[in-house]
């Protein structure tokens, strides 16, 4: 019983999903938050810090949509500002200094497209992540657990591996935007979703992602599934030398 692309889109946006908060609470109960980009601010749409994972230190970075309307507005509904990308990069480079693996959890419609974001260099912030994350000498794994929207998601998903939850999407823009730009008709959303190859199955086939994580309704099982994948993949990546890791990362994108 395969879902249609539009059903996956709806499920990816559904409130039934696990949240960044849950991921931190259950998988990383000793999570210690680190704030700020050391340049201009502290974007609440990105929450990052250090935690232990099966007894070993890791750097954890999650996007955050927030709860309640006030918090959601502050977090721009999980759309990072340039300072959010810069905070993530600061934490990733810090992790590399100590060879601490980086685990990113992404659910964002995209980078925040506001006036302040433009003036503070949204494009430059994302560009810097793409330039530098490819070169860090520590494993970087991304799990997408909802929407993976455009360059704003790619800037947090350009490391060694990207895994997607069964009910998540990753695309160049929303299917609504796609159908309105290409067909000047926002009613062809379902057709757009179908065509865009944004479901985990399509993306796995294109080798854009490494794998799909089963996502039953019960959150305890979902989080256990994430734990299992991360444990296995980290063990694999940690056997590689720094040079092997970076060459592998180069090849990962070079093939497209």
């Amino acid at each position, binding site marked *: 019983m395969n879902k249609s692309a539009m059903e996956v889109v709806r499920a990816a946006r559904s409130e039934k999903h696990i949240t960044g908060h849950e991921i931190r609470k259950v998988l990383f109960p000793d999570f210690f938050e680190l704030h700020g980009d050391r340049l201009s601010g502290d974007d609440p749409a990105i929450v990052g810090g250090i935690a232990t994972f099966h007894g070993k230190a890791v750097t954890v970075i999650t996007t955050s949509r927030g709860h309640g309307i006030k918090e959601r507005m502050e977090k721009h509904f999980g759309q990072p500002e340039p300072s959010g990308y810069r905070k993530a990069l600061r934490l990733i480079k810090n992790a590399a200094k100590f060879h601490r693996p980086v685990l990113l959890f992404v659910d964002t419609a995209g*980078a*925040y*497209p*506001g*006036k302040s*974001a*433009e*003036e*503070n*260099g*949204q*494009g*430059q912030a*994302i*560009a*810097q992540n*793409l*330039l*530098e994350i*490819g*070169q860090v000498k520590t494993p970087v794994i991304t799990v997408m657990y909802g929407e993976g929207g*455009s*360059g704003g998601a*790619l*800037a947090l998903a*350009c490391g060694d591996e990207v895994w997607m939850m069964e009910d998540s999407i*990753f*695309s*160049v*823009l929303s299917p609504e935007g*796609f159908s309105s*730009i*290409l067909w000047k008709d926002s009613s062809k959303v379902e057709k757009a979703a179908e*065509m*865009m*190859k*944004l479901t985990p199955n399509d*993306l796995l086939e*294109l080798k*854009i992602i490494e794998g799909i994580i089963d996502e039953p309704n019960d959150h305890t099982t979902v989080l256990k599934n994430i734990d299992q994948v991360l444990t296995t993949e980290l063990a694999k990546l940690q056997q590689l030398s720094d040079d092997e890791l970076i060459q592998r*990362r*180069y090849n990962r*994108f*070079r093939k*497209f």
Partner: protein
Amino acid sequence: MKLFQHKNTLTENHIKADKAADDKVPDGLIKRCPKCGEEIFADKLDEYAICPSCDYGFRISAKKRLTWLVDNLDEWDAEICPSNPLDFPNYEEKIQKAQKISGINESVLTGLATIANIKFALGIMDPNFIMGSLGQMTGEKLTRLFERATEQHLPVVLFTASGGARMQEGICSLVQMAKVSNSVARHNQAGLLYITVLTDPTTGGVTASFASQADITLAEPHAMVGFAGRRVIEQTIHEKIRPDLQDAENVLKHGFIDQIIKRQDEKATLTWLLRNGGEYHE
């Protein structure tokens, strides 16, 4: 009341528009500068195609830019054509049209260029090719440009012009941002100079990747440089934004561009920067 009876008002004296005027003036004879509104006789535009009033550089094809920019160019990968990874309907027709207009096969022209005996790797994105959008093969040509430059120990100069990712190629376009960025990083690690010249328009995924990763970032006067589209920004913040928010001049003020360079000065500027901005190559 006298005011209203006065015959000599502006309206009375207004010269009536000649409704047939459009028919009398051949198509394309007059161009309007999209930035300052100045009307320019098209034949007054020289090969640089700049507005005499505000220095805005009109969008020109990569091939036209080449004519005054370099002394010589050996083109690389000229045969590479766009792919259609999503089997997007009617995309081939669109590509053929773009190829006919621009005279190139994909939205960027690349090669080994020479100015004043200085050799460098050059890329010019073409705004006439599906708005310079970043297709999978655009990314491939750019990656090869940086890889060859790294191997041959050459600086890279890249003229950007792009609406961003190419929608018809979906996710395969998006990942080019990371692919090209990785090749820029290797070029950078080899200690080589990278200069970008942002031309109108440089937006979206191109701004958010290789356009913003250079050692020296130049821009043409009034070029639109930004990440999100104006309409999207206005819908997001629920207010109108100032018309020059994404003008290169404003982006410079915020610290993201080194200098605005007029088109006719680009060759001399690049010559100086290629000599002095990085390692020297003759």
